[in-house]
């Protein structure tokens, strides 16, 4: 899947390997873009996991696919398609009035229908643009080839904006996420915050899709935060930890797909899965250790 003639070889000489990794400009750009995306997705993902809005994240990522395919069909950069569709879909989700309860769970059948329709539209646009059908893979499952300097800059500017918004609204958003009733009694504009958050989420999903593809966005959006929250319940540590894990996933994923010739989407998702598994095991082990130290009279047996 690489555009070079010679397949790069791992030498186990770390300095040489890293040097080799950045020999080509496309690889440098892949790392730049991946870094930006990892930070933004993990930061927003921390709130997504806390607010239990992964379903919204998934819907937005699926809607991004016809956006990207349509943009390419029209001869525009896929980047704009992702952003336009994800942000528009976020606004629709946020502004459609819904009953009491959280994150449109009751409308999941409707959303499921829309997801299927979005995928079908993406498929149609991709087929209409003849000769592009191969590109469907990279739209759905990710690619890091041919990221231009301009694209990196766009990702950086938009991502920095999204992150800045998140930092400004972070504390009230946390309050509203864990305790909406008290937060609104305190005068926090809970409804406005949830709209703003969904738009920021749309931006993050649009960014992450460009590296992981529409279907594997969760590797960067949800997994780092879910793993971090399993390891720690301190908000700041968890937030920073999620970003760190996101970077590990992205860098390892890119490096592995450079040396071992499998798609980047596969590698990032695999690394993410391994990290999640590790976090789950670690948290269970700590809990078991704590339980053992705190003798519980209700537990019977060995």
């Amino acid at each position, binding site marked *: 899947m690489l555009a070079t003639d010679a397949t790069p070889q791992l030498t186990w000489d770390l300095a040489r390997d890293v040097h080799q990794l950045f020999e080509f400009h496309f690889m440098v750009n892949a790392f730049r873009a991946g870094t930006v995306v990892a930070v933004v997705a993990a930061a927003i993902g921390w709130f997504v996991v*806390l607010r*239990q809005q992964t379903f919204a994240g998934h819907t937005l990522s699926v809607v991004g696919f016809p956006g990207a395919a349509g943009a390419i069909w029209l001869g525009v950069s896929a980047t704009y398609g992702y952003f336009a569709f994800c942000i528009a879909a976020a606004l629709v989700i946020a502004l459609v009035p819904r009953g009491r309860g959280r994150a449109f769970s009751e409308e999941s059948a409707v959303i499921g229908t829309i997801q299927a329709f979005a995928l079908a539209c993406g498929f149609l646009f991709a087929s209409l643009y003849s000769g592009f059908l191969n590109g469907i893979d990279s739209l759905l499952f990710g690619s890091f080839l041919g990221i231009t300097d301009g694209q990196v800059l766009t990702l950086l500017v938009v991502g920095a904006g999204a992150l800045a918004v998140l*930092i*400004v*609204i*972070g*504390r*009230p958003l*946390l*309050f509203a996420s*864990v*305790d909406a*009733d*008290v*937060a*609104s*009694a*305190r*005068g*926090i504009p809970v409804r406005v915050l949830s709209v703003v958050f969904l738009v920021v989420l749309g931006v993050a999903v649009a960014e992450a899709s460009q590296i992981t593809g529409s279907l594997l966005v969760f590797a960067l959006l949800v997994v780092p935060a879910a793993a971090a*929250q*399993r390891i*720690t*319940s*301190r*908000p700041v540590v*968890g937030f920073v930890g999620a970003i760190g894990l996101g970077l590990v996933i992205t860098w390892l994923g890119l490096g592995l797909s450079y040396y071992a010739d499998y798609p980047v989407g596969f590698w990032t998702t695999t690394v993410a899965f391994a990290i999640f598994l590790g976090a789950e095991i670690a948290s269970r082990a700590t809990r078991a250790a704590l339980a053992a130290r705190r003798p519980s009279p209700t537990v019977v047996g060995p």
Partner: protein
Amino acid sequence: MTDDEPAVIRIRGAEVRLAHKTVWRHVDLDVGPGQFVAILGPNGVGKSTLLKAVLGLVPLAAGTAEVLGLPAGSANHEIGYLPQRRSFDPSLRIRGVDIVRLGLDGDRWGIPLPGRASRDARRRVGELLELVGATAYATRPIGECSGGEQQRLLIAQALARRPRLLLLDEPLDSLDLPNQASVAALVARICRDEDVTVLIVAHDVNPILGYLDRVVYLGGGGAITGDPETVINSENLTRLYGAPIEVLRTSTGRIVVVGQPESPTYHPDLAHHHDHPHVGH
């Protein structure tokens, strides 16, 4: 309450309508500083709605509500509020200390920077945890705390900004009897020592009976207010509900209300013949 002391809550002829139905009307209520007041009544009579009216979260269809000298909703920064029945999702990975801290500065924009303000905030959170006796489990994820532990942490959160008025919606709900007694004692102690006025919604009056200055008994679309002895008797409650109600007192001083309808039987459209249900205070 003496006349020269300003009222913490002054409600006159209040009526609330939700979804085109009257929840209650003709409600008058005066609460003075430092008083411990219970809102009683069966499910669905509008006890929570009364707290929300005090917070200005539901509008009055008639009458007026003044809280801490201002129209309801304008003094909310001086009110600590604990909504009804919030057990946290067991998977929620936020510690008790963080929940308490949110009560202190959770509505500020931006992120907290390390420094003096941050140290002060941490010290205040420590004090609050000490006050409610939650220090031992404050660093556990709140979803893993028991109902009583969560309730104490939430009371600490509500107290974070030294409110003058504390609104507690069924804080004893889903607690076992010893915990009901100890949380009730805690709230009464805070009311006395921190000089906070407390408005507490309760399904069962007995755990708080010994601490009460006055009660608001909701039912039949209206309310009776007064001190516990005069309000909770057969005659008043029978008049309030328009159905025979018996109030029994056990030898230990517990109150048992017999025949109280569990769901509101009041229909405003059919109730024109009802007398003004308010019997003064």
